[in-house]
């Protein structure tokens, strides 16, 4: 159905001419099939080789997400309320780690920060240029909440742009997050109301 959409939509179709276009079409087709089984969202495609970002504390996403099955939005709590997802306040970490795994070196690192009343100087991994307006809340609403998507699986939605975080320790960037990446996903998800207007994202 996405392909149909592409064919009957000259605007989008035109953009796909040429070999690059064809290749993309095929990839899109495959991806859309893969997704179509589960829900009618077409995940964006494209990969990026992100270098490792040294963080003050090597935060192990895998332990939290995979092993302990903590929801992304438990810590990144602003995602559904704001443009940015936010870094959890240190107090939130301490909420658990006052008692849990206090013997681990990383936790002791964290505790040191906490006792000095300062928050760790985290490094930004996923960033967008200044002239881009991206809101987490709207994407989550459209992709998850409006479609009664089970919130416990929200990480599958996050994975669209943040990759397979549950298998990373320190998160690093595995999606290009460039304009093509966004635009193609928007075109593919026209039916979900993904806007094609420049000023929706450019400021």
């Amino acid at each position, binding site marked *: 159905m996405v392909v149909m959409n592409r064919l009957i939509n000259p605007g989008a179709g035109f953009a*796909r001419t040429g070999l690059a*276009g064809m290749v993309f079409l095929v990839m899109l087709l495959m991806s859309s099939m893969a997704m179509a089984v589960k829900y009618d969202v077409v995940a964006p495609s494209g990969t990026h080789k992100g270098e490792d970002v040294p963080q003050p504390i090597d935060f192990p996403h895998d332990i939290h997400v995979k092993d302990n099955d903590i929801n992304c939005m438990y810590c990144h709590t602003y995602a559904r309320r704001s443009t940015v997802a936010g870094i959890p306040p240190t107090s939130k970490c301490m909420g658990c780690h006052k008692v849990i795994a206090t013997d681990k070196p990383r936790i002791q690192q964290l505790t040191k920060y906490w006792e000095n009343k300062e928050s760790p100087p985290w490094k930004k991994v996923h960033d967008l240029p200044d002239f881009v307006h991206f809101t987490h809340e709207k994407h989550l609403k459209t992709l998850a909440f409006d479609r009664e998507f089970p919130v416990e699986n929200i990480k599958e939605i996050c994975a669209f742009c943040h990759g397979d975080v549950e298998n990373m320790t320190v998160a690093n960037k595995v999606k290009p997050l460039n304009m093509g990446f966004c635009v193609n996903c928007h075109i593919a998800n026209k039916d979900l109301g993904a806007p094609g207007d420049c000023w929706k994202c450019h400021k």
Partner: protein
Amino acid sequence: MTMVTEKDINEQIAWAKINTDVLKSMENPRPAYWITLAVCLAMVACAVLAEYIQYTVGMGTAALNNPHMWDMYIAAFVFWIGMSHSGTLLSAILHLIHADWRKPIYRFAEAMTTFSLLTAGIFPMIHLGRVWNLYWVLPYVSDRGIWPNFRSPLVWDAFAITTYLTASMLFLFVGMIPDLAICRDNTTGWRKKLYGILALGWVGSDRQWRHFRKIYLLMACFLIPLAVSVHSIVSADFAMSIMPGWHITSFPPYFVAGALYSGCAAIITLFILLRYFFRFEDYMTLPIMEKTAKLTFAIAMVWTYLNLIEFASVWYGHDVYNKELLIAKATGAYAWIFWTMLFCGSVLPFALAFRKLRRHMPTMFVVSLFLNLGMFFERWMIVAPTLSMSHEPHQWDIMYGSIVEWAIVFGSFGWFGMLFLIFVKVFPSVSMYEVKEMVFHRKRSAGEEDLARMTDHAKPATQTTGGGGGA
């Protein structure tokens, strides 16, 4: 067409002499040549400095401001595009109508076309605020799915100019092939290598000649409509807008006429220079100069006519803004430029109506320079006044550009001169094989049938065994 009282060229001139004369031109020109070249290089140096300042500090250094978003750069751009037209006129149009007097001079005219296009092509880059994104103007497939705006005349420009440039370069090159062969056969060292490659293995066989004629004719036919369309499109940059003084229907023909005009004037200038530099008195003869001058005069009158048409249509039209602007042009702050333009463009050409003046080289040199000054002012008078007083009176402003801007504009003349002078030194600036044809035909028309004697004297160099050069 014209009753020739005096021969365009001395048909007794031997083919071998033609070769030697022309080939000599590539070796030792008069010192004046070197002086001119040095001046040009100096101008280019200044321009490069100015551009560096503008690029690093900002467009503001060109004294551009809110009403004057465009200024001298666009004027110069139009000027150089126009300059390029006469080359096509001489080489293509006159070729089609078999005006063979063009033969000794069309080569450098054609070169002029190419180089003025190269000069014009630089201005959009100088003019852009963010030149490093220039390629966004071209349609290319990207996964962003964004395209240039095909409704914008600037995009049409990009297409038109690149096409015209390619075509005229090819035309220049193709027309040169037989001569390149001659050069190849008469030179040594790096030159021989160079010409060898460029001559594409020309041996002057009948088959080669047949194909050569065909392709040359076809390209001539292809080039003429192209030339016309290019300047029409450039005129669209203005005519497609809603600004008073720009939104005028007669702009395309007006621009084309202006283009041919400035081109011919430039040809006269360069004619005289080359004639002096390379001692081409035997080839660039006075009668040819006269013909060129007459042609220029005719075009000048066409241009004048179209000017009057524009004024009339504005005057009697309903557009109050347009009329207001016309009056302001004639009486306002820019009046002196406006009237200078009209004098140089419409009055001065009458000098070309007098045989005495036509044959007096220094006069012709000065006159041709002034004609081109007039044409440059014309372009300026198209760009500046409209911006200086458009619909919104609050933003009215008079502006004469800054030192940076002028340095770059003058520099462009140096840039053109540099390219041109290097070309005429490296390549034959007179088409040898065509001059030979010319001589040949004149002879025949003069009724001398003893081709045998002539071929004995020297085989046509086009049957290349290096015959001519050594003899």
